[in-house]
């Protein structure tokens, strides 16, 4: 079996102030995977990725990138790695083209090779026309795309994106998803992303790890995780306002708003029964949707369970 793209064993990070950010986590990401690392703020996502990228010094543990131990040959490991951080971390006063060319140079790529690569990436990401402008003149979404182009200049086999679509509008987010899907499927680039948009993880990723309080609480495939989903909450818009929630035997029905019902459906329950019951009571349903993203529902319950356990 091929070496994992990323292998983490017993990774621990204790900051100078005594905060234990990572408590000996283990994690494997296979080659070619599209992997999501989820967790609430302060859970340890960025610290984990920071160690992998050499921006954070680990306290203990081992990290290997395509089988290369970062303690033994970090330089070689870094060649396999492209990083798109959460915060903009380029010189805002430099030209777009200079930023990507300099990054290629840091990896030892000669200018004759870097120029066509820069043209290809900036064109694909819709930034070629902006190449001679200062980076500070770009919109937030363009700056994020610039960081993706920069990270891909040296053709990394593993791309790490920390909150890549934070603050990006829906249209641009979708186009970035398409682009990431393409480089994952067509070029075989392994992708790890952290995100707060769980819809993003569900839509893009095949496998997922959930980290909370510096520990991996789940590490599985998205499909398996969703199969475990016990309940889903739906919102039903009704034609006429109601003064109280109707009673439907076997279901939890609440009144979210006068013209909106909330309906909790457990796995295996038939929703036809709900519609029949509502119809018998003269309530006409005009539309229906999930209250939250399915994964989000599971994530919130998992994280809150763990938080309660930690407090207990």
């Amino acid at each position, binding site marked *: 079996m091929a070496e994992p793209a990323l292998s983490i064993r017993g990774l621990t990070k204790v900051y100078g102030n005594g905060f234990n950010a990572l408590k000996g986590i283990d994690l494997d990401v296979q080659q070619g995977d599209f992997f999501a690392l989820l967790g609430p703020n302060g859970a340890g996502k960025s610290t984990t990725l920071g160690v992998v990228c050499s921006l954070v010094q680990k306290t203990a543990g081992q990290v290997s990138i395509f089988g290369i131990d970062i303690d033994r040959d970090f330089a070689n490991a870094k060649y396999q790695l492209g990083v798109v951080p959460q915060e903009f*971390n380029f010189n805002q006063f430099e030209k777009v083209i*200079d930023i990507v060319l300099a990054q290629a140079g*840091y*990896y030892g790529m000669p200018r004759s090779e870097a120029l066509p690569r820069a043209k290809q990436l900036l064109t694909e990401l819709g930034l070629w026309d902006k190449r001679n402008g200062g980076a500070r003149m770009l919109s937030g979404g363009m700056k994020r795309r610039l960081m993706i182009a920069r990270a891909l200049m040296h053709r990394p086999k593993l791309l790490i994106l920390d909150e890549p679509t934070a603050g990006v509008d829906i249209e641009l987010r979708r186009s970035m998803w398409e682009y990431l899907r393409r480089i994952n499927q067509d070029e075989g680039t392994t992708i790890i992303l952290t995100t707060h948009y769980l819809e993003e993880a569900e839509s893009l990723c095949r496998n997922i790890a959930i980290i909370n309080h510096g520990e991996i609480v789940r590490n599985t495939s998205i499909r398996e995780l969703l199969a475990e989903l016990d309940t889903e909450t739906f919102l039903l818009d009704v034609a006429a306002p109601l003064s109280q929630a109707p009673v439907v035997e076997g279901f939890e029905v609440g009144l979210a708003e006068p013209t909106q019902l909330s309906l909790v459906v457990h796995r295996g329950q038939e929703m036809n029964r709900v519609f029949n019951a509502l119809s018998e009571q003269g309530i006409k349903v005009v539309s229906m949707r999930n209250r939250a993203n399915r994964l989000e529902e599971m994530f919130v319950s998992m994280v809150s369970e763990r938080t309660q356990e930690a407090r207990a």
Partner: protein
Amino acid sequence: MNTTQTLVALWTLVYKEIKRFTRIWPQTLLPPSITMAMYFIIFGNLIGSRIGAMDGFSYMDFIVPGLIMMSVITNSYSNVASSFFSNKFQRSVEELMVSPMPNWVILSGFVLGGMARGLGVGAIVTVVSLFFTRLSVEHPLLTLLVVVLTSALFSIGGFINALLADKFDDISIVPTFILTPLTYLGGVFYSISMLPTIWQSLSMLNPILYMVNVFRYGFLGVSDIPVLWALAAIAAFIIVLFIIALKMLEGGKGIRS
């Protein structure tokens, strides 16, 4: 990284640094030339004509090497200090840290960039001085050697300052409160033979005195202190500070959490 890749990476960093200070030339190259022209006019021409000879040379001829050296020192130092700190501040230092570039290449890139500015400004000030005096260089190779070494030394100093700095104020403290007084007291404007014995002895503790004197020796052929001893001291300082800066960089001082 193989040798070719390392050289590409080093040149990328040096080129970027040179491009940075030339892009903002009204802030980096123009002010020192105007300031030094003022020094030449006021101290060299107006006041200097009343001071008379210093160590057997006209006062203007005496201060020119010191003023060139002063510009090289301050510009080498401040270029690296401000550039590297800006990289820290804007977090673009992460571009370097995630790359496979060895730490010595990162350090050397910034130091060579600082030297480029320091020596560039030194060359401009030298040209400006030609409007006020006729320069003769007694020992050209020695002059070149000492200015290059001094520029390297203060570039490394600026790098260490930037690594330790947490805010912009921190990169102006050393130049204002240490570098400038040491430069002014380092024999730029006077020969230490004019000082009482106790002050002469204290002046010998000032490293900038050695650099200014050896540089002046290169131009005029006179020095207050032994030239070889001074060269050895500068070289030793460079080696020690380079190792300290490299260790700090490897330890992630100020740049890794």
